[in-house]
């Protein structure tokens, strides 16, 4: 029996949306108030979904102790109370929630081997959310 298990986590972080590839005016038009040079912050709610057969011995798709342990060390400790623009993965890219979703998915995919990773979904605010479930073309045109 295949089931899907989803766990929610929260990190608080700041960011500024600004692309070196655009002029100051283009940045202002594209990113609006998110382009404020001093940055701003969000409480990001991160949902991690894993799937697999339910182990008849344990009744589980994945032991939450393993999932929580990995996410705490590799995701929450990395992003919580940080300025996303200063992290190496955003040194060149813009720390939009789309890109944060992809970064978290890649960290999980690379390092977490206790269950199949299905998707990562992030709520930036109550009004918007983003999800990434893998796929070949991560960035348009590349």
């Amino acid at each position, binding site marked *: *029996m*295949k*089931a*899907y*298990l*989803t*766990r*929610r*986590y929260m990190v608080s972080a700041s960011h500024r949306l600004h692309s070196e590839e655009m002029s100051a005016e283009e940045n202002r038009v594209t990113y609006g108030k998110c382009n404020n040079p001093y940055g701003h912050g969000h409480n990001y709610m991160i949902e991690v979904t894993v799937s697999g057969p*339910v182990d*008849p*011995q*344990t*009744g*589980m*798709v994945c*032991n*939450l*102790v393993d999932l929580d342990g990995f996410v705490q060390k590799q995701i929450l400790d990395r992003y919580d109370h940080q300025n996303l623009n200063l992290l190496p993965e955003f040194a060149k890219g813009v720390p939009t929630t789309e890109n944060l979703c992809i970064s978290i998915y890649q960290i999980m995919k690379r390092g977490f081997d206790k269950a199949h990773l299905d998707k990562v979904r992030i709520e930036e605010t109550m009004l918007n959310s983003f999800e990434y479930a893998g796929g070949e073309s991560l960035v348009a045109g590349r």
Partner: protein
Amino acid sequence: MVYLTRKAEFSASHYYHNPGFTPEENARLFGKCNNPNGHGHNYTLEVTVKGVVDPKSGFVVDLKQLKDVMNREVLDALDHRFLNKEVPEFVAQIPTTENIAIAIWQRLEPKLKSAHLHRVRVYETPDLFVDFYGEA
């Protein structure tokens, strides 16, 4: 195709224990969920059915019928119960959220007449839920 979801809540107690494991293995694997006296949750159940909209009624499913089936097959059996001791499915298997979602699917699926069951989602807490789509 239209999807319709109905929510319900139930409160129940449970504990995690596999008699095939040693006490140490049970404690290591299940942690505080292994306390044999049990502990409880307020579970939220979301049942999603899918179908075409009936041109006469405008319904995918008769909500009253769906509610009655959920009440009779699921809530009457699970609400305010000690799952390990009072629900037949969990005498031999551990009442994890995964197994609860599967058991609810198996209780509902044969009883739903007009609508096709699409998903059973069970929240154990607001930050943990399991989806089951009837996949083998």
